[in-house]
């Protein structure tokens, strides 16, 4: 291959890369591949922990993500809520991200109210947002009622039957955090799990997982869902195929395109270097 051709390939217009990626991720929209992931141990541990809880157990969910990470974490939020409802657990949902309240409200209504017909205030409650990050996490350990005096709709928490006898983390059987970053799983591990002795399950965006896997290995996290792949594994486990399993096709194609470009870039690089050496 000539030097000029190699140079052209090395300095290929990035729009060709964009086009290849666009075709790859759009391909599954027309031709469904139906790829389902195998269950990994951290996802299995998450699932098993929920399965081990007796019916009626009280679960605190902190859904901390924004619309930017919605594609990755919303399927996770939905499937986790779905599993909690399947198991007939009582769920209190909060969020610490200011851009999340309406989005999380939609998910809670979609699963708890519309799909399973559960009663608000008795089977589930949505307390909405409290700004304050780590301070709120610690404050809930002292008094959840004082931290969240009313729910998302302005109803005082004292009038919600689900909150009867609930004072702090001590009355919850597990804390589940769906986290896109700060404040999220890392802060719950650092400020809450050991201090208030509450088991923590986490679902996080894939970019955070390398950091959180250290917490999973140390036992500070009882289970860990890894990005959209973790959500897809979870959907398969609870037998409710949703957006995450659908997204697996696109993600697989995207990964292959990136791998192909890495290999292509290196082949061109080595050929260019060899030609330069000869000349």
């Amino acid at each position, binding site marked *: 291959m000539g030097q000029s051709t190699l140079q052209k390939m090395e300095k290929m217009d990035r729009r060709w*890369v*964009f086009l290849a*990626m666009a075709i790859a991720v759009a391909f599954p929209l027309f031709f469904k591949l139906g790829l389902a992931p195998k269950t990994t141990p951290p996802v299995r541990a998450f699932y098993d922990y929920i399965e081990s809880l007796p019916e009626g157990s009280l679960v605190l969910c902190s859904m901390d993500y924004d619309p930017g990470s919605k594609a990755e974490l919303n399927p996770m939020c939905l499937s986790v809520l779905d599993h909690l409802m399947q198991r007939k657990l009582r769920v209190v949902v909060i969020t610490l991200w200011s851009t999340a309240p309406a989005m999380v409200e939609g998910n809670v209504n979609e699963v708890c109210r519309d799909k399973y017909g559960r009663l608000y205030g008795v089977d589930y409650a949505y307390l909405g947002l409290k700004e304050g990050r780590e301070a709120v996490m610690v404050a809930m350990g002292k008094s959840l009622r004082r931290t969240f005096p009313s729910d998302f709709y302005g109803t005082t928490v004292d009038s919600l039957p689900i909150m009867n006898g609930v004072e702090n983390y001590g009355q919850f059987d597990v804390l589940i955090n769906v986290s896109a970053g700060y404040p999220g799983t890392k802060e719950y591990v650092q400020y809450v799990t050991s201090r208030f002795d509450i088991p923590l399950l986490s679902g996080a965006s894939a970019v955070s997982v390398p950091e959180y896997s250290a917490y999973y290995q140390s036992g500070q996290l009882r289970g860990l869902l890894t990005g959209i792949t973790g959500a897809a594994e979870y959907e398969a486990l609870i037998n409710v195929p949703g957006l995450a399993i659908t997204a697996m096709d696109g993600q697989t194609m995207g990964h292959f395109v990136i791998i192909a470009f890495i290999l292509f870039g290196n082949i061109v690089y080595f050929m260019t270097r060899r030609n330069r050496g000869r000349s």
Partner: protein
Amino acid sequence: MIVQFFIPHPVVNDIANRLQNWAIIVISFSYVLGSANILRINGELVYRRGSGWPYKLVLVAAFFLMVIPGLLFGIKEGSWANDRLFAYTYTPLASTMYASLAFFIASAAFRAFRIRTWQASVLAITALVVMLGRVPISHLIWDELPGIVDWIMNVPNTVAQRGILIGAALGAIATGLKVILGIERSYLGRD
């Protein structure tokens, strides 16, 4: 706040709780302060027709467009502000920003993952293995691949992450001690 860990007395706990509530209030007010700051800085730039003023104008207009309907109609599901502005405008825009990463990562991978040194080859090979191992058909490519990815994540990755976490924690403790003992005073505007 530190003392309450060592002296679990109601008086100390009460003071700690009070400080925590202050922290929550201060953080909430920081939003108000931040909003006022955005308006002041960008409003001034628009008024003086400073550099990039049309963008600042868009920012200020978008700020009021989100805040005023939110205050008037609420942010609950079904409200005008939530449905029109948040669900149908902000959410797709934020998702688009996030999704565009796929294109930039592909482009960056093509240009940056060149095996020029042995360290770069370790990085590139690890990246390829993890990317292949993270797709649902990884076990069809090679049965051992998911296991290798698990090992990479559980051993080299965790070792490095623990090192970073412990290092960062020690650094934070050292900085905290320096601030408490008055050695570090740069936050007061001094050397």
